[in-house]
């Protein structure tokens, strides 16, 4: 144990805490943004600080600071313990943590090429060339961005854990926005919407995207959408592309299986969950072919981790197996309530925030169909992909999602492109209607760096492995034009 975390733990024990953990984090970020061939922003950010979580008088207290110094450590420990004592004024019972074996470990990052060694000029140059090639007549905005993170996190606990984890993340993407004289605006992105795709990898991940090759075709699709027909409205069979399915998994499986949410702890912000404990082990969430995992061990996955922010070693669990709801994402305090073991899903956004139950990599296991077979099985339907709009109710049951692009399917073949495709449904009805999932060759783990939860808001980096999949009898075309 290092002297700083040792001081924190000793201080908490001296003040009567029955448990204490300390996370000391040193993190660098770089965000690069280019618009229409010109650099818009390059931001280098450095964060260093520590967070202290204690149990005293049977209740939680937490405090954090960006001043890493002995005197501040003493102050923060005192404050965390004082907060715990205040919390105890309203406790109904003492906090109980599931037992875990203390770990001492050192986890290296998974990058081949440290992205922070690549000059800014090279990053800007790549995005500038890509976005310039997207500025076709009718394209009003072409954006490109890259984001990189390098972090060393030390976790120490009063139970004897001392874990050092290094992490490197890289991500990038481009998008084109096209506008018509009639005021219609359409967007296409590559390889994924918003910040693009992200992974626990180095610069090699960005190079593998081949942004230059895909930039112009992406812009052409945005332009083509302006001339496309509106999304038809009705109940149709739906093939959902891998990107869009990542969102579907995220919103309709990942969030509702967070156990803190199930227990009502998120009720005041993100809401609760329809996956109540009485459904565990028996509720038909999806069809027989639907297998959804929480797996923090997938190499390079953005949601991967060796240990969570409680020092629990990450392990794979099936949230849904053979269509039946089986397991939750959990924590040391919540797992015992539903008879589970902690599986490594307690995560905090930086040093300043207290860990909460978060997604890791939540994945739909691949099936055995080719893309052509998925489409061939549809007489009258729609194929959609590209995340554009999402909304789901506070129990994660009723959703309405919009995609960047869609195509009609008739007679088992892709037909005309459609713009503004939307679909809506009820989570378990939707997943129960799944009758085809793409094979391993179509499988990709998408890195999502903007998952929000908690109060104060915490942003988590998560991921979703998906192949395209087919769903029957879905309401599409919600918005009339």
């Amino acid at each position, binding site marked *: 144990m290092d002297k700083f975390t040792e001081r924190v733990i000793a201080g908490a024990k001296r003040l009567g805490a029955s448990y204490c953990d300390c996370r000391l984090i040193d993190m660098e970020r770089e965000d690069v943004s280019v618009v229409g061939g*010109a650099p818009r922003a390059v931001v280098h950010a450095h964060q260093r600080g520590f967070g202290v979580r204690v149990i005293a008088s049977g209740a939680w207290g937490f405090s954090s600071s960006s001043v890493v110094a002995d005197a501040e450590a003493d102050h923060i420990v005192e404050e965390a313990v004082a*907060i715990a004592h205040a919390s105890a004024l309203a406790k109904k019972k003492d906090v109980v943590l599931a037992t875990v074996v203390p770990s001492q470990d050192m986890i290296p990052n998974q990058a081949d090429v440290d992205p922070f060694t690549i000059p800014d000029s090279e990053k800007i140059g790549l995005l500038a060339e890509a976005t310039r090639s997207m500025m076709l007549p009718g394209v009003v905005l072409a954006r490109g961005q890259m984001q990189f993170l390098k972090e060393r996190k030390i976790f120490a606990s009063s139970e004897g854990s001392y874990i050092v984890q290094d992490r490197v993340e890289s991500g990038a993407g481009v998008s084109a*926005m096209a506008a018509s004289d009639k005021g219609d605006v359409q967007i296409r992105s590559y390889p994924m919407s918003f910040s693009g795709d992200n992974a626990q990898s180095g610069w090699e991940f960005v190079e593998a995207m081949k942004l230059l090759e895909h930039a112009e075709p992406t812009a052409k699709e945005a332009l083509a959408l302006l001339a496309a027909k509106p999304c038809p409205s009705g109940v149709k069979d739906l093939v959902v592309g891998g990107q869009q399915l990542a969102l579907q998994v995220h919103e309709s499986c990942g969030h509702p299986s967070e156990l803190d949410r199930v*227990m009502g702890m998120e009720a005041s912000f993100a*809401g609760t969950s329809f996956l109540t404990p009485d459904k565990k082990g028996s509720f038909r969430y999806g069809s027989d072919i639907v297998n959804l995992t929480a797996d923090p061990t997938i190499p390079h996955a953005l949601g991967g981790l060796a240990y969570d922010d409680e020092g629990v070693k990450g392990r794979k669990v099936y949230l849904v197996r053979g269509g039946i709801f089986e397991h939750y994402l959990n924590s040391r305090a919540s797992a015992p309530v539903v008879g589970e073991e902690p599986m490594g899903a307690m995560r905090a956004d930086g040093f300043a925030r*207290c860990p909460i139950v978060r997604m890791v990599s939540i994945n739909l296991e691949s099936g055995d169909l080719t893309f052509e077979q998925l489409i061939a099985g549809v007489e009258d339907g729609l194929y959609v992909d590209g995340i554009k709009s999402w909304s789901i109710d506070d129990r994660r049951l009723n959703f309405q999602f919009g995609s960047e692009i869609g195509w009609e399917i008739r007679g088992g073949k892709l037909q005309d492109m459609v713009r503004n495709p939307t679909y809506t449904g009820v989570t378990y009805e939707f997943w129960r209607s799944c009758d085809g999932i793409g094979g391993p060759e179509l499988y990709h783990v998408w890195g999502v760096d903007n998952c929000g939860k908690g109060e104060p808001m915490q942003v988590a980096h998560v991921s979703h492995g998906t192949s395209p999949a087919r769903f029957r009898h879905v309401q599409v075309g919600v918005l009339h034009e």
Partner: protein
Amino acid sequence: MSKEQLHGLMRDALRASDADQTEIVTMTSNSALTWYAENIIHQNVAEHTAQVQVRAVVGKKVGSASTTDCSPEGLALIVRQASQAARLMPDDPGFPGLPSPQPITAGRVDGWVAATAASQPGERVLAVKKVIERAEHEGLRAAGTYQVQNSELAVVSSMGVAAYQQYTVAALKAVVMGDDSSGYSLMSSADVANIDPEATGERAVRTAVETRHPAEVGPGAFEVVLSPFAVEELMGMLAYLALSARSVEQHTCFLEGHEGEQIASPIVSLYDDGLDPAGMPVPFDFEGMPKRHVDFLTEGKGGNVVYDSYYAAKMDRATTGHSLQQPNDIGPYPLNIFMGAGDSSETDMVSHVERGIYVTRFWYGNPVEPRGAVVTGTTRDGTYLIENGHKTHGIRNLRFTQGLVDMFAHTIEISRNRAVLASSFGIGAMVLPSIRAEGFQFTGVTR
């Protein structure tokens, strides 16, 4: 840290810069939050953070860097890093240079209250207990947060900008749940003394009790009465979609090309005012530029959007003092949205509805079609059927898919009372009334 100490530190760092122009923005925050659910406190946290952001300009090259290290050494290092970063950058031909100082109207604005800054965790716990006890009395479950925040924002630049403001925020939120119903309330103020836990709990509890055993109504077009909480969710989406120069650039702004035209009901006025003490004022933005009053809609006529210095230069306008921390991908942003007060009350509005829906709150809004500000989301925490001028009973939550421009055009009544709703950005607030509107589109019923 005092204004003089912080500005002194930042000016010393400015002097260490070898860039042509340098700007330093410092935000410090001491905040605490008590988080409760299921009638217990499950998290109780504090954080003490500082963030220093530096922009260095060398010719037309701009470099940025940020740090959490607020020491003299940390500031000097980050200034050097920003300058080095600038030299490695290609020219940004569109960068107009850092803005020159402008007078800031500080006297009218005082958003800092000592009692809020000094509040203790025990006080928050006792307030939360009052909400919990009120809920337990009705056999209900309370959840929510009580947050207090004591922050500083300081901006200095080599152009002569020197701005400093302290501000405090206290906000108590309650979601009270029964088996098949829930209620919501939020109270926020710069002054912790204005937070009334009994009233907060009472409103949420009353809604949860009144909306028990919800009926199924809709979908379809309904006349609605929207509480200020519901209006806030919609205005939050509008701010992101359509009220800034960036939205004009992206052609998602419904005001574009309609300045002076009657595009909404004449009773609707919407504006941003960072100086109005009725909200949570901060008199300058993250470039140290004074906040200007910006009218988006004046008696239903199209107005302007907000600008920062970058977009002001790009579009040949003046900055309105609405920059977020630079650089950013959001663009200029209105943090102090007001909707003009009407002459009615929520009770009167409900009494004027023959058959309609009262919405306490919307949830998970997201744009569907940006140009018409068409957004979707669901109702939450207290949705009522209104019949013959009375809220008769609770109904199941509904999904809406509604154009906000269209909603403004069909707004027929606005309350004189407005709620102050602290921003989730941690700075600023919206000040919003209840509204009554015709033809609001509900497109689905939730289960």
